């Protein structure tokens, strides 16, 4: 099925994994859930070298509470994220987005870290991670770590700040306790990659929007954050009319793809419709 053979290592610590990556350089490929990697390997005819499987590193799995952040291990599966109370309490936007990813089978194998590093522009977790202002912890050769803000993490189509020989280890999300959230995903058939989706989370005070965060999926080569819309929403009443006006310009300046599901104009139109729906739902209106 997977044409070329490759060597396989399954380290049990992050340091071992980094050492394996350092040893094999270019040849090494990191395996998380494999839900994106395996289809890619299958298409290759030449040998992919060494596969470094992160599946046996306990430190990379699970969610914990770290004061004003929650910390999610890169190898935490979608299913585990979805079932986690810390996530649903403090970052419910992420729970809602994860619930729309593919189907139960993919969610049981696919990981949050794998999805973020894979950085498919149609992927559903980039926009919420961006909107929630997450920080991503990247470990490099020798074990030193650096923290990258979500704003700096997504560089281009399938390209992130995680460099060769590096690993994404943690996703640190500032707590958004008590914020309303909604992920509005548009698809043609009932389950599919997003044609366009909008992640919105809102803190309301007595019927008025006090703070808002809005992220866009598949409206460009990376997930986008709609900062001007976020600002325009502050102080607005949570009504259809007010929100409609505040989000009207959400697609300005975006450069979404054109493909079999629709051209970029159609996607810009969708972004406006979906943002309105997402914010309305997040504001509980």
């Amino acid at each position, binding site marked *: *099925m997977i044409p070329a053979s*490759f060597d396989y290592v399954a380290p049990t610590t992050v340091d071992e994994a980094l050492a394996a990556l350092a040893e094999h350089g270019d040849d090494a490929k990191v395996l998380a859930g494999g839900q994106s990697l395996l289809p890619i390997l299958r298409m290759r005819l030449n040998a992919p070298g060494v596969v470094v499987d992160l599946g046996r590193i306990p430190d990379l799995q699970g969610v914990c509470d770290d004061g004003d952040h929650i910390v999610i291990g890169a190898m935490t599966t979608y299913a585990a994220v979805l079932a986690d109370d810390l996530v649903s309490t403090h970052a419910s936007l992420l729970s809602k987005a994860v619930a729309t990813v593919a189907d139960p*089978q993919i969610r049981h194998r696919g990981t949050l870290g794998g999805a973020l590093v894979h950085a498919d522009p149609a992927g559903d977790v980039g926009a919420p991670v961006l909107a929630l202002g997450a920080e991503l912890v990247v470990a490099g050769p020798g074990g030193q770590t650096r923290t990258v803000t979500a704003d700096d993490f997504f560089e281009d189509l399938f390209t992130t700040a995680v460099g060769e020989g590096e690993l994404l280890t943690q996703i640190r999300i500032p707590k958004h306790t008590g914020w309303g959230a909604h992920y509005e995903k*548009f698809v*043609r*058939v*009932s389950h599919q990659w997003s044609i366009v989706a909008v992640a919105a989370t809102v803190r309301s005070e007595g019927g008025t929007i006090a703070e808002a965060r809005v992220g866009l999926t598949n409206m460009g080569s990376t997930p986008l954050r709609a900062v001007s819309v976020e600002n325009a929403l502050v102080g607005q009443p949570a009504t259809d009319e007010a929100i409609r006006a505040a989000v009207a310009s959400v697609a300005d300046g975006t450069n979404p793809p054109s493909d079999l*599901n629709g051209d970029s104009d*159609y996607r810009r139109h*969708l972004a406006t419709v979906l943002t309105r729906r997402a914010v309305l739902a997040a504001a509980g209106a």
Partner: protein
Amino acid sequence: MEFTPSVNDESRVARVDGHESAAQVIRDDFGLTGTKVVCGGGVCGACTILLDGDPVVSCLTPATRLRDATVTTVEGIADGDDLHPVQRAFLEHDGLQCGYCTPGFVVGAVAFHDRWRAEHGTTEPDRHTIADALAGHLCRCGSYEGIFRAVAAACRGEHDGGAGTVARVDGPEKVTGSAVYTTDVTLPGMLYAVIRRADIAAARVGPLTIPPGTLAVDLLPPDRRVRWAGQPVAVAAAETLDEARRAAAALGVPFTPLAFVTDPEIASRPGAPLVYETKDERKRAPNGSEGTVFPASWKGNRRGPSRTPYLGSLAKSRVAKARTTGRRGLVELEFHTAAQLHTSFEPHACVADWSDPDRLRVWMSTQGVEAMRLAIAERFDLDPAKVEVVADYVGGGFGSKLSLTTETVAAIRLSRLSRRPVKIALDRHEELTATGNRPGGRSRVSLLVDERTHGIEALLVDTESHGGVAIGSTVGALSMLVYERTPRLARDVDVVTNAPPGAPFRGPGGPTYAWALEQTVDEVAHRFGRDPIDLRAQWDGNEKRQALYRWARALPTWRERPATGSQTGRFRRGVGVAAANWLYFVDADTEVVVSVEGGRLVVTCASQDMGTGSRTVLARAVAGVFDVEPTDVVVRLGRSDASLAHGPASGGSRTTVSLWSTAVEAATAVRAQVGAGAVTSAHDGVSATARRGGDRGLRAVPFTVGGIQVGRGFSAALHVSEVEVDTRTGRTRVLRVHGGIAVGRIHAPALARSQCEGSIIQGVGLALHEQQVLDPHSGLTLTANLEDYRIPQLGDTPEIDIHFHEEGWDRVPGGGVGLGEVATISPAASLGNAIFNATGWRPTTLPVRPDRLLAGLRADAVR
């Protein structure tokens, strides 16, 4: 690397070198072939297993992940003979047809059921919950209604104990994973072969270079031309699939690229590159339709028109005059359809074993074991008595497996050379590129009615079929058979291009003609403020359809439909109706044998069951005569050799109508010999054979086509659909479809219903989602995987209600005719009319993608 996972409670040794998928190890090394690979890309769920209790797709799970794991495959779901409640529910509610997706569904549904029961007891999950839970599974046969019913019933606890009923006699093999399909066949000493395909759309090919030691043969036509990207060029065999792949890639194929054309519009222009240059080449153009291709003249890449007239000149002059005088009674519309891919879940596959020079055994995924045995004998100049064809289980075909296709010819040739068994199974990319499609095309319909009485005065249908390198469209001709009381003329043109060939697809030409004709009828009704059912009833001479009109008028969905264009909100609902007309066929040479062996009733026929239920039809026919349960009857099907008499192919809606009465006749003869009591081993050896014979005096045409008699009279169907359109995003949801089917007596009601439901689901796909797309720069198929070629899922399935009108076919033995095709014709057209009713905008181009619908609504608003 070696490790020992626990698989179905047994410890197994796996030796992997790090690159296999779990699916590969489970199927090839553990021999657990219940786990199926359909897409290989995580989309279809056919390969679902439980890994430490969680459902995962084994095609994207590295085999190394099985280390220390507990694995359950479909074979491990039942506890010995004691089936899991979900399996029993699938059997009783018939959540399957061909069964190829079933193992995956069963495993996924068991995971959901067990969790649901633990958390919710016997509360029934709603459709939405079930659709979400099983979102990772696809079924091309469209058994979704049965699956909904089965999962809900299992969750209600209805199948916790007891054996339950079995709607489909081969269901138990399918829900436990023991049914063996061609893709599951492995023979000792077997070689694997892979087809090398052209990756350019037109070329002249020089002599093949075969590296020394490689077993390979050339597959090019005599003129050594490549005419479409994906065309087979050569085939190479090796000890393993991986090696065969590399061997095929290593063959030296000197392509000299030629100019090509994939756009029918450009192909029609003078000076366009010619797909076929000479008369001889044209003669070899494949037939994209069923039945005979009548001669027609060519002009460049355009063939035809083939005319189907009745007072054709009168029709033409009436329309021409109405055009010049601008008569309101003339409605003229143009429609476009896209190529739809069959997408059978079991790919085309063959295992050929010619190791004994005197005996050729061929396992193949085919819709016609007997027809293929004869075709193979002819192709290889053999005595048919030396050929045996086996297709115990067939994972769908939908028309694409009716002829002798490349993989079979290639496997046989390689087996002849190597004197070893050779296996070829296409992968999904090949299946979605090279195995045929329902051609897209363009139709212009001109329908003229009297402005006062609304009687039809003339009907013109001009069609252009875009079957790639294939010809033989009958789309226009089929439109002439419906509303017969008028002067009319169809002109069918084939435009050939360097695109993959069209092939017969369930009701060839049917959904395409209906998309155009039935929407034009709807437009006339709208223009004159007539009820679309009443208008059809006024025109229609078919009594069976008249009965369906009466049924449909009474449906609440129909009675409560909104006035067209009357709604203003964001979500708009609409209801549409469309009628269908089809021919009926009989295979007069069909023979069925009923015998008693070991005290059991056995029924034998050289036919096959590709999910349409032939096994169950035969079992029920015999069981009825003896008053026993269908599961008490042993059915021998899926095999053709010299010892067996002729059996019908599964195609052209002829199988059930050929089998039923023949089996009843043979069983009745056995009953006469056995006497009244129970059948016991004392009766062993009793046997009777019956032959179907033609429906004498009832033929519409005085000849048979390959033993297939065209019957007199038309079968009928009517679909009433309700949709909801989101006018802000352009997305259409199909809420409800009522299907009325008038094919006479229904012999296996649960299975017949399932066929009709599947037709509707395929119609939803045709209407809203499915579209083969080629890259104009290379001619390569862009939609060659199940992510880019979208078929409907559980969550896209409307509520479906099927009504059978069982009268009117008493003169046919058995009292009924075939339904597989007539049920498939009008669903898409009814959805088009429903969208028009909801929005006031008529979708003329298939598929009605959200972006198209939105653009249409906006253009209408501007107008």
